[in-house]
């Protein structure tokens, strides 16, 4: 039996926003610098040899892909390590569920906050690379919306894992078996066309692949191509959202 209130989820989201505003200076670099390093290393280093991919300058190809991954990392760190520390070490969730908020409110609020961070990191990265002329269409203004929807997907998966993991040590597996392979094989650094068909099929089932394609489509002004990608993400977001709520309830309520 679900016990969910949108107001409760919003209150929890507001709490996270307040905390974020205080810790902004420490948390932004940790998630934001990594894609910048990749961009410099690959975009400039590899880009010097490899001028064009699919008719695009390599740096533009990589930068748009990395914007999608910055959004993914923003949501993922929030709903893995941050959520686990609050829930397991700080015991904040235990305190909050004795107020009118329910475990489901906390779960949904946390997912919405993860999605918000996804928007913040993805958009910030995009703004930086836009200075290099990578963004070529005003359709890019729709990208924060795409990052939000995909942020819900990444957050629900991460929070579901957090709700069942017996130890913080297992997050390394979450990253090495799920996030990193996705990062490498979602067409961020190279198109998947040259890879075996089953790799492309597998990639289709992962969310990042669709975020990357949607990001490129909007940044380069072919919005129609973004539609199926966004539909995929939205459908998965709606289907998965109740999962972490149910799991967190089981973990928090005896």
């Amino acid at each position, binding site marked *: 039996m679900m*016990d969910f209130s949108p107001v409760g989820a919003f209150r929890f989201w507001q709490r996270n926003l307040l905390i974020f505003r205080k810790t902004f200076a420490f948390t932004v670099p940790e998630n934001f610098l990594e894609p910048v390093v990749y961009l410099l290393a690959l975009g400039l280093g590899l880009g010097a040899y490899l001028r064009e991919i699919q008719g695009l300058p390599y740096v533009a190809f990589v930068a748009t892909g990395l914007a999608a991954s910055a959004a993914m990392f923003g949501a993922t760190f929030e709903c893995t390590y941050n959520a686990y520390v609050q829930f397991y070490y700080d015991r904040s969730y235990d305190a909050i569920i004795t107020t009118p908020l329910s475990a489901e409110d906390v779960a949904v609020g946390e997912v919405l906050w993860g999605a918000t961070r996804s928007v913040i990191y993805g958009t910030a990265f995009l703004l930086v690379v836009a200075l290099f002329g990578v963004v070529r269409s005003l359709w890019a203004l729709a990208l924060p919306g795409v990052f939000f929807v995909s942020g819900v997907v990444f957050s629900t998966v991460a929070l579901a894992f957090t709700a069942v993991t017996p130890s913080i040590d297992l997050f390394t597996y979450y990253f090495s078996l799920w996030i990193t392979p996705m990062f490498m094989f979602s067409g961020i650094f190279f198109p998947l066309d040259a890879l075996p068909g089953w790799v492309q099929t597998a990639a289709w089932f992962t969310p990042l692949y669709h975020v990357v394609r949607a990001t490129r489509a909007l940044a380069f002004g072919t919005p129609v191509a973004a539609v199926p990608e966004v539909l995929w993400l939205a459908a998965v977001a709606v289907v998965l959202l109740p999962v972490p709520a149910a799991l967190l309830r089981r973990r928090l309520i005896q």
Partner: protein
Amino acid sequence: MRMICCTARPTAGSLRVFGLDVRRHGRAIKRQLGVVHQSVTLDDALTVRENLVVYGRYFDLTWAEARRRADELLAFAELEARADDRVSKLSGGMQRRLMIARALMANPRLLVLDEPTTGLDPQARHAVWDRLRQLKRRGVTQILTTHYMEEAEHLCDRVAIVDHGRIVAEGPPRELVDRYVGREVVELQVAGDGALARAVAEQAAGLAEGFEVAGDRVFLHTRDGEELVHRVRALRLPLEAVVLRRATLEDVFLRLTGRRLRE
């Protein structure tokens, strides 16, 4: 305790808080509840004042109401000077006072406290007790769990002694003391170990109305302590000390729950 707070579901029977079923009306019950957890559950990244304000928001206080209420409670908890510090900078006693202040943000009908002074030094404990008595005078109903019988005796109008999940005695503290122990206790410190204490207890038991053995000490329960002291002295037992004192809730607790430990 967790069932009252609606964070554990009853496995059998029924539980009503304010006349509402905990299974169905969790939100309505929790809206009128203030909870002080045993472990510190404050938001470490936030300041003292922000912890209060954010908590008030969970109860749908407006920002202005929450800020005003936070200022009142900072004064109550004597934390005004620390209002803008991060909570990790506070001492254990201050954190506990802040937890109590936080639980009061929405003017609860019932305050639930889980071992509110465990781990505090004596000054900090008295500061917490002082706040809880003030609240009691203002008519805030409180339920608290504690292992300190002194605390239960100081703060509570009614005490329930729970042993292995069952209530073994219930009533006003003085009444329980009177019913189970009597007025006074003569403590015998034996010159030896627990075995000697048990031997001493058997010899002295006939003189008292009841007795308990705790390690190398024997507690004799009585209504006339002075008389009992004289009679114990006359037995010339191997004792290091004989002390007469008033019976306390601790004696009741030992009497009602202590046996299991011995067996």
